[in-house]
């Protein structure tokens, strides 16, 4: 990040991937080649993406650090800035402030069984973590991914997920909210699918990202399955502006989600003030 934390770096859109009817992934490269080469980030970190004129919004970096050619953000069309971003074409220019915030402590997770639980756009921060773990497969025990969305068409990264399903060293479970003809996978909400899978908490960690409603029930299910608070990781979404701990917007008590987060363990959240 440059000396001025509010000054984005100019980047060019290399590729736009329509993941679902309302999620697009944007692969970007910083125009300053030296800056791009110097870019260092970790799975779970976020960035601020600017479409000047429309404004700036916060997104998880959805590409892993090992794919050095580009920086990817996956954007759910939700409001003003995200709708404007959905109009981007290859060659267009954006501003990027990244990386911001903390990351998943993948070193602490070494040697453990990994359970990733994602819902909707919540797959965005999980994707780089999973790819990182697959790149370092021997460091981790069993890896399972449970991913849910409203309907089959709302599941992002499907091309890749099919490849993951073909691998023998990773178990993938997909679920959709309501039954559709010829859907070969699970049907039902993510917490229910998790209950059915009923992963063992022994030497395991669970990492969950998704809409607040889903997270709430996933946490309840994990508790029921006897996961301790220290074994559960999640990311928080708060409305953010500066992303650097100054504008005062994203606090929970004396913690700022933009710099102290977005990744927290459930044990940390239990110790924080109750203002989610």
């Amino acid at each position, binding site marked *: *990040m440059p*000396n*001025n*934390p*509010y*000054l*984005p770096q*100019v980047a060019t859109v290399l590729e736009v991937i329509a993941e679902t009817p309302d999620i697009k992934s944007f692969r970007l490269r910083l125009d300053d080649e030296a800056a791009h080469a110097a870019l260092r980030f970790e799975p779970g970190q976020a960035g601020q993406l*600017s479409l*000047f*004129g*429309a*404004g*700036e919004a916060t997104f998880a970096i959805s590409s892993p650090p090992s794919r050095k050619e580009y920086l990817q953000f996956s954007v759910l069309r*939700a*409001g003003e800035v*995200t709708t404007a971003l959905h109009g981007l074409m290859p*060659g*267009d*220019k*954006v*501003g990027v402030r990244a990386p911001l915030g*903390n990351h998943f402590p993948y070193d602490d997770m070494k040697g453990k069984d990994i359970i990733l639980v994602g819902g909707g756009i919540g797959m965005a921060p999980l994707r780089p973590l999973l790819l990182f773990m697959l790149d370092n497969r021997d460091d981790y025990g069993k890896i399972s991914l449970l991913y849910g969305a409203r309907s089959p068409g709302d599941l992002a990264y499907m091309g890749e997920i099919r490849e993951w399903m073909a691998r023998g060293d990773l178990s993938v479970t997909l679920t959709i909210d309501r039954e559709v003809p010829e859907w070969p996978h699970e049907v039902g909400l993510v917490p229910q699918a998790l209950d059915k899978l009923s992963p063992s908490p022994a030497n395991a960690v669970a990492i969950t990202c998704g*809409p*607040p409603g889903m997270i709430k029930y996933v946490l309840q299910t994990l508790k029921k399955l006897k996961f301790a608070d220290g074994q559960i990781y999640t990311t928080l*979404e*708060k*409305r953010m*502006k*500066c992303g*650097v*701990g*100054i*504008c*005062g*917007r994203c*606090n*929970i*008590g*004396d913690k*700022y989600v*933009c*710099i*102290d987060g977005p990744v927290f363990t459930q044990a940390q959240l239990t110790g924080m*003030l*109750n*203002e*989610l």
Partner: protein
Amino acid sequence: MDAKFISRGQLPEWLRSLAARFAVLAPARAGSSVIYRPVDPEAPPRQPELAVKPTESAKRALFPLSEALLTFVKNQPDGKPGLELRETPPPRPCLVFGLPSCDARGFLVFDPVYAGSGTAGKFQDNYYLRRREQAVLIVKTCPRPLSTCFCNWVGGGPASTEGADVLATELKDGLVLEALTGKGARVLDSALLRPAADEQLTAAAQSRAASEAAMPPPVDISGCARALRGKFDSAGFWQGHSAGCLSCGACTCLCPTCYCFDLSDEERGSRGVRLRSWDSCMLPLFTQETGGHNPRAAKAARLRNRISHKFSFYPDLHPSLPGQDGHIACCGCGRCIRSCPSAVDIRRIVTEALGTAAEGAE
């Protein structure tokens, strides 16, 4: 350091001369309010309004209501997509004349946040820091406290010099100006000022002592950080105190220590500016998330955040001396009490939190 005297008659002329070197702000009447207005070196000299405490704080001097952080140009001349970003050049150094001591102490709350200390981020905001470094603050001793003043509860006083460069004290016929810093001494180096005589210095010291004596004794609020943490989940406490709140944001707007901001773009054609503007945690949109969820949808939750930030979260992040409470992010200026249309009183909230906390497990 230097001590000078300026007669009341020469004061406007001196301010005009300073305006050649600085963007000078001085208190001026605006209807029933007193606000900080730029001193125009071309306009006829005007006496600053020194009899009444300014309605607003002086924070706009270092933290403008709205400022362009960047300018952007989107399209290249050939129409191809482009993006050129330019940082706004540093503004002229600023001088504030006649701010009350609480306003100068207010900037002590901004300083560590904008310097990135005390947080995990360590990001520096040079827009603020540059202004701060160059600014000259001429604080004026408060002659008598208002019923809403409580600066002495939070480490201040009517003649506190913390954060200031010059201390001005009014005498009958003019002001004694005492330099507190090198920057302060340099602005006192003017032919319009003469060295203060011993009697004038004595009179100024007496006036300051009288101001301090006029302050009611402080209420001890040590332990407030813990007490407010203990009150966090007491819904009734916060609902009671916020019942009349209109979510107007007057309190945060006038407050010398409220530093929250918004970022937004303004565009015409293919060029525009990214603006930083004051924002307020008392407004419901402040934390409204796009998915519809709002962690502070209720005004009780917003008031709780404003008070707890000042008297609990901020002190926890910015400890002062070991064993003492941290730096309280309120300088006791009383503006939020005075200007609140529904009489929300920050002092009462803090003392009641302490009072009930004392009955508890202590």
